[in-house]
């Protein structure tokens, strides 16, 4: 009996850990592209909140999950474009303007929620897909192959992002612009175009990350429902050494800790829940300390680019 309990306990944590990694992955991969091109987007949290609300509201009204997802993408893209304009054309300090976008997203998503909905509602989010054969494998099937589509796509994006960054012309341009914008510029690469692409893509990915919470994981919208997750995703980019697979490892580490923490709360372990919730944040700080020593950030990160003369 005890054996069964522990096995199912760990399967439960691993399965929900994989699921909970989804928003970190979308937001973290988007932020990776943006930072590799030299732009620190700290508005992720605000973009996620807006994406989460847009997806939830449209799904709630139309009953169509894909329309909800489209709404999140549009809202994320709009916020990404705004961030791009402010940091690229107006060369605003990236850290502070990112905080401005965070406050904007926090305030606006709360405002829209209160004005358009008023009460907490639920929707039927993306259902889990039981992948034939693989999903039937005991334990492994339960952990990996009975998730919803957003989870599969998130993990599929990791090698795709890696491929784009390392093997395509666009990836080469992104890295060049992030490491040495002057050299890239002198070779005819448009620094601002590349950064517009990455920052807007980052916004879209953050919007999807929000949607993956409101119509995939939790299927509700509540004000400030991300509660710092977007900032953790930014930290994961540092932790992952600006590499997609590194970000994935970080995301999994965090989501597993979170899953464990949630599970222990459910099991009624006598540690105050307030202190358990603290764990991922403490872990983030430790992770940041450990990584900064070992990897070098893109040289042009946070530096606006301007042609001489």
């Amino acid at each position: 009996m005890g054996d069964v309990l522990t096995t199912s306990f760990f399967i439960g944590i691993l399965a929900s850990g994989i699921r909970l990694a989804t928003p970190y992955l979308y937001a973290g991969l988007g932020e990776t592209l943006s930072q590799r091109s030299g732009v620190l987007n700290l508005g992720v949290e605000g973009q996620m909140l807006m994406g989460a609300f847009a997806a939830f509201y449209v799904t709630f009204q139309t009953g169509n999950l894909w329309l909800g997802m489209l709404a999140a993408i549009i809202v994320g893209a709009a916020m990404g474009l705004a961030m791009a304009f402010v940091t690229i054309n107006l060369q605003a300090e990236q850290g502070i303007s990112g905080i401005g976008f965070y406050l904007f997203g926090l305030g606006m998503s709360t405002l829209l929620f209160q004005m358009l909905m008023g009460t907490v509602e639920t929707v039927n989010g993306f259902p889990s897909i039981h992948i034939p054969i693989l999903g039937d494998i005991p334990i492994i099937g339960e952990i990996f192959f009975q998730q919803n589509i957003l989870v599969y796509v998130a993990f599929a994006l990791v090698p795709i992002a890696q491929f784009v960054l390392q093997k395509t012309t666009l990836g080469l341009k992104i890295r060049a612009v992030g490491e040495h914008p002057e050299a890239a510029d002198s070779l005819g690469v448009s620094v601002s175009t590349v950064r517009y692409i990455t920052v807007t893509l980052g916004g879209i990915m953050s919007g999807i990350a929000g949607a993956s919470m409101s119509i995939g994981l939790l299927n509700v919208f509540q004000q400030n429902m991300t509660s710092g997750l977007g900032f953790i995703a930014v930290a994961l980019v540092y932790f992952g050494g600006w590499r997609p697979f590194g970000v994935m490892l970080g995301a999994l580490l965090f989501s597993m800790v979170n899953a464990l923490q949630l599970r222990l709360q459910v099991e009624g372990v006598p540690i105050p829940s307030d202190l358990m919730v603290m764990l991922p944040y403490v872990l983030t700080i430790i992770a940041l300390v450990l990584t900064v020593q070992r990897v070098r950030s893109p040289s042009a990160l946070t530096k606006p680019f301007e042609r001489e003369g």
Partner: protein
Amino acid sequence: MKKFDASQIIDALLPVFATLAALAVGAVMLLVLGANPIRAYGALLEGAFGSGNALAETAVKAVPLLLVGLGICIAFRANVINIGGEGQMIIGAILGTVVGLELSGGPGWLVVPLAMLIGFAGGAFWGAIPGALKAYFGVNEILSTVMMNAIAVQIMNYLLRGPLIDPAQAELASKIPQTAPLDAAFRLPRLVPTRLHLGAVIAVGLAILVYILLWRTTLGYRIRAVGQNPHAARYGGIRVRRQIVIALLLSGAFAGLAGVIQVYGLNYRMITDGSATGFTGGAGFNGIVAALFGQLHPIGTIPASFLFGALLVGANKLQRVMQVPSAFIIGLNGLVVVFVVSSDIWRRKRQRRRQIAATHQPERETTLTAESGG
């Protein structure tokens, strides 16, 4: 000479233009949401300035913004971005409240200053951690301060629901997370028959002190030198890492004091709703907005805090009269931040033009290297 003055006035007015632009975008948002922006901003103004009591409430809201904003001025002058005001306020308030509760019955003239000092130190500690992490480990301080906020909230929730909970609340089913009330003798005196308390005087006094600190002391000189050019500062013999820690430490200390003053001046106990803003009212973030609007100058932050305090007070009226949720102000403040930071490009452009003019006309150099002071 005259031309330079005009250009400097434009520089000083840039945040005002930026804020007006943000308000204009806010007006469009209100229109989209079906609210008349003129009536909405009218309600906002009336709520903030419409009566003596409204003015006093605005000043009350401005106190924590100013204190946090002063800390922001110090940190930003060292080129360190402190987003941790919320957490630093919370830690300061917790420690200050514990002092008051433990020394209940003691003499107010001793206990209250002691509580403020301990809260100041608590905020300093909470700020020094990300400061040291940045200085010695290169950890991005924006991320670490955001995490420190989240940690502080959980500490607060744990303490206010557990060990520090008001014994009266512990008996009830509601279990509101709040501490026992402070001794009535510990309440900060009120200035006029409104809720305006001594904290306002303390905050304005400290603004002047911070100005002196930044521009009239060696420490201030070092902090600003590090902010302007860390390499040159290091070459000049300044220990850059130490200044970074000091800047964030001081920044946190002022936020911590803001937390204590919230407790001793306003609520007379520490209370929350389980979120950071439940205790701080968002002052840790709004203080950043005020400091940016005040051009990171301690004296400029005084009227700026008053202005953003007005927005917060007016927001309540906005909610009552127009049914526009007060979250609108959070979003609006975000826009103000984005616009003010973006507007800086025009100041830099003119500065560069001035420098170019200076290299062509060396005799003007003396006026140009003069301390800009903000």
